[in-house]
């Protein structure tokens, strides 16, 4: 043990002499990170990315990014003698002739799915806890960029084997590019090196997939992490946690062990999944040919919403003289995603403008304490979910024996109706939870212990809220909405910014208007004194009339008792 430490010390000394690492290392190793399970979501994304780099490198050793047609002759007998692209043949080779090749392919694919899932859930965590607020808006923008690129990277990756399923995806991509007004036709010819499918696209996609995008990923992930380091991680409210401190464990040793260990857990779980669960069995799909498709074709999950948008969009096309615009393809595949990702990236700035909140926030919001934001988030998720359902309209139709037409027509309407309903319901739930929080603060929590007074009255003993919960509830930030001004001064001179100011104030009212304010400190102390008095009185009632004593502390987990029974915590 000590020999290891000595050797390490010498190496560190060598490096410090040459690079002066001691000072930065001191700060780094001591750096405190707050602990919460939801902070692991971003870690899963990071570790999945590392797994993707490792396994992807293996795959490049055998994969041939070529669309040259070859006749397959390998271990997978059903496809022997079939004409296919070299890309598909080499993927079969990886799956059936390279020992461990299938494992690497499956780990790569599973890790890609985990990458996208963890990014998405991480994004939701950051959104609903308000972790994107000042000073972290720029990191949110980087995160949005990473999500967008991850979707593209995933699509590029699963298109490379050139199997029937992914080739159909590329065919659809061609249709999408063609739908772009004015430049679409030329863009398609340049991307594909001529007509579809040509022989250039897979090699080009390969370069994008293994070089261009991973390079951008490394840069953006590096910046993402550096910002987290520089700004220190946000933390959830709790005892002793304020906006100006960070409570947790130091990098060395606890976080080093936990985070480092977690990388191996993620890698291990991905490998075990790949051992047991087949993913993307390209041999079952067969090689790509433009004149075949299988029914029930579904893209990977993260492309499903786009596919859904394409499915339910009405068949609008406009002809203007010699030119045509395919709204039916262009809007759902280019315009809608463009708007969605722009809004997503701009969200912190929009919210900051509406609320006028310019303070730094290091303590996370509880979703209920930002009801409008939480409701907007749920509305967005519902919208996404509706698109996702639309992407499976054929599966729903065949599974439940419904009319595909009826499902599609309904979804065209429901996508506008359901999200606003989700907004209203979520907001009401948040406000109710706020009221509940105030109740808990003022009246404590039900202990489950019922007392009967000599007069025959039944009283349930309330106990004060545990300190931990109090700290969490008291972290709420009550903000008054901005005042709505007329926009004219006493001389009737108009303020040039009056329109935007009034809009902003109205939005601020919409944002904060329904807030249920926390009780004031005086109210809280009065309530606590009252509760203490009540409790004392109940105690003395029991003492006086029945000569009983109560166990020191009523406990939360005691069994609830019926009104007619005696309290089990009262001893004779």
């Amino acid at each position, binding site marked *: 043990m000590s020999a290891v430490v000595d050797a390490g010390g010498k190496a560190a000394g060598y490096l410090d002499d040459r690079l002066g690492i001691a000072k930065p290392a001191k700060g780094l190793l001591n750096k405190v990170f707050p*602990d919460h399970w939801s902070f692991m979501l971003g870690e899963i994304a990071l570790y999945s990315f590392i797994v993707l780099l490792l396994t992807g490198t293996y795959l490049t050793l055998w994969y041939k990014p070529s669309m*040259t*047609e070859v006749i397959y002759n390998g271990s997978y007998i059903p496809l022997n003698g079939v004409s296919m692209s070299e890309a598909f043949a080499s993927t079969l080779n990886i799956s*059936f002739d390279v020992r461990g090749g299938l*494992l690497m392919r499956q780990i790569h694919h599973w890790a890609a799915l985990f990458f996208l899932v963890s990014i998405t859930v991480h994004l939701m965590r950051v959104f609903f806890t308000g972790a994107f607020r000042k000073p972290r808006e720029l990191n949110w923008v980087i995160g949005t960029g990473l999500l967008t690129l991850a979707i593209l990277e995933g699509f590029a990756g699963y298109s490379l084997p050139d199997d029937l399923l992914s080739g159909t995806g590329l065919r*659809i991509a*061609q249709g999408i590019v*063609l739908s*772009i007004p004015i430049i679409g*036709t030329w863009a398609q010819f340049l991307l*594909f090196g*001529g*007509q*579809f499918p040509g022989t250039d696209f897979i090699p080009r996609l390969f370069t994008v997939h293994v070089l261009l995008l991973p390079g951008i990923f490394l840069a953006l992930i590096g910046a993402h992490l550096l910002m987290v380091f520089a*700004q*220190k991680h946000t933390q959830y*409210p709790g*005892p002793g*946690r*304020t906006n*100006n*401190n*960070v*409570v947790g*464990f*130091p990098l060395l*040793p*606890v976080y080093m*062990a936990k985070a*480092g*260990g*977690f*990388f*191996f857990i993620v*890698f*291990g779980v991905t*490998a*075990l999944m790949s*051992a047991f*669960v087949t993913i993307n069995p390209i041999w079952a799909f067969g090689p790509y040919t*433009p*004149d075949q*498709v299988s029914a*029930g074709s579904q893209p990977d999950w993260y492309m499903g919403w786009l596919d859904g948008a*394409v*499915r339910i969009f009405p*068949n609008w096309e406009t002809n203007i003289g010699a*030119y*045509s615009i*395919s709204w*039916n*393809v262009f809007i759902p595949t280019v315009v809608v995603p463009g708007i969605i990702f722009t809004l997503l990236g701009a969200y912190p700035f929009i919210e900051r403008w509406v609320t006028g909140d310019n303070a*730094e926030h290091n*303590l996370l919001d509880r979703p209920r304490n930002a009801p409008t934001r939480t409701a907007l988030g749920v509305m967005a998720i519902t919208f996404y979910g509706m698109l996702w359902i639309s992407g499976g309209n054929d599966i729903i139709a065949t599974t439940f024996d419904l009319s595909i037409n009826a499902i*599609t027509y309904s979804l065209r309407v429901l996508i506008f109706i359901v999200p606003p309903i989700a907004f209203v319901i979520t907001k009401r739930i948040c406000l109710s939870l706020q009221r509940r929080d105030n109740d808990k603060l003022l009246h404590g929590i039900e202990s489950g212990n019922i007392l009967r007074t000599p007069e025959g009255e039944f009283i349930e003993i309330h106990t004060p809220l545990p300190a931990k919960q*109090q*700290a969490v509830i008291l*972290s709420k*930030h*009550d903000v008054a909405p901005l005042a709505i001004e007329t926009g004219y001064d006493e001389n009737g001179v108009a303020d040039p910014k009056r329109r935007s100011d009034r809009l902003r104030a109205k939005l601020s009212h919409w944002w904060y208007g329904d807030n249920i304010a926390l009780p004031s400190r005086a109210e809280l102390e009065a309530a606590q004194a009252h509760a203490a008095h009540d409790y004392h009185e109940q105690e003395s009632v029991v003492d006086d009339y029945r000569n009983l004593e109560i166990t020191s502390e009523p406990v939360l987990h005691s069994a609830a008792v019926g009104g007619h029974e005696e309290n089990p915590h009262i001893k004779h």
Partner: protein
Amino acid sequence: MSEIVSSESSSVYDADGPNEVVLPNGRFAPAPLPHELRRADIDPKAAKRAERQVANLFILAMLMALLFIVAYVAVDKDTVIALPVIGTMSLSNLLLGLTFGLSVFCIGAGAIHWAKKLMPDVEVVQSRHDMASSEQDRAEAVEIFQVGADESGFGSRTIIRRTLLGALALFPIPLIVILRDLWVTPPDSPSPSALLKETIWADGVRLVVDGTNRPIKPSDVPVGGLVNIIPANLEEVQKAEGNLNARAKASSLLIRMRPEEIRSQQGGTTEEPWDYQGILAFSKICTHVGCPISLYQQRTHHLLCPCHQSTFDLADSAKVVFGPAARRMPQLAITVDSEGYLVARHDFTEHVGPSFWEQGS
């Protein structure tokens, strides 16, 4: 706003620390809870046990890594086994994944177990500072920048500034221009839109069955039947071009219905209809985004695209009856040649596949 005073790095659980802290909203909240000791903190036996558990996990990791090598060498790559629930799978993949996965997993599990049971679990507090630099630093940085900018003369030497901006604006242009040859266009090549509008179907080209390349006689196609067809010269063209481009546009299908069921067609006259005795040929490439279509319902004569469910009525000029497609499926005019085989009369008159800007109406 005041803040809790804490040293750069100290335990939250100081006995005489404050019992209330100030939150950003100005409220007071309870101070940290007292730290609770774990079994391993007070019981040396428990600590020893945890130590053994961690070491055992690491030993298991080593064992699994070695077993991976055994599985790699010993298991035949073609062996397939059937497992309950999971189904048939490659034994090699199963064992390699299992041993590798467990070996990696156990390293992680050991490290985390170590951290949770044996490393200190006392939470530590560090203070934060606003991200913004001090006013003085800001002012100094601005000053350095301004001095530098002045020294460079960027503001005063207008001609340098303007020519530099011009040069910088133009320098990406060569990098963009060079992308023009992403499509190396043959000297006599038609325009992209012209290429999208033509297929290799032409007068007299035989319709052959996709897969067998067998020419088709009208008697081969029963009423209600569907045949996937390609032009007889497709294989030849494909070989010459070395790609699937011709196939991606020329793939078609043949269906037969009773002539009285045909309500309308996309062209032809009563004397020379585009069908042949109720045999109709259509493009197979969806006009929406190009999926090949082959789900045909003979009772309604509807053709359904499996990708986005666009539905076309083949008895009524293949017009769109449902879904996101905007244009009908192009019809191929057919007849029979002197030997009685089905042939095309000319190329499609409407373009095949997805819509594009220059398609015209």
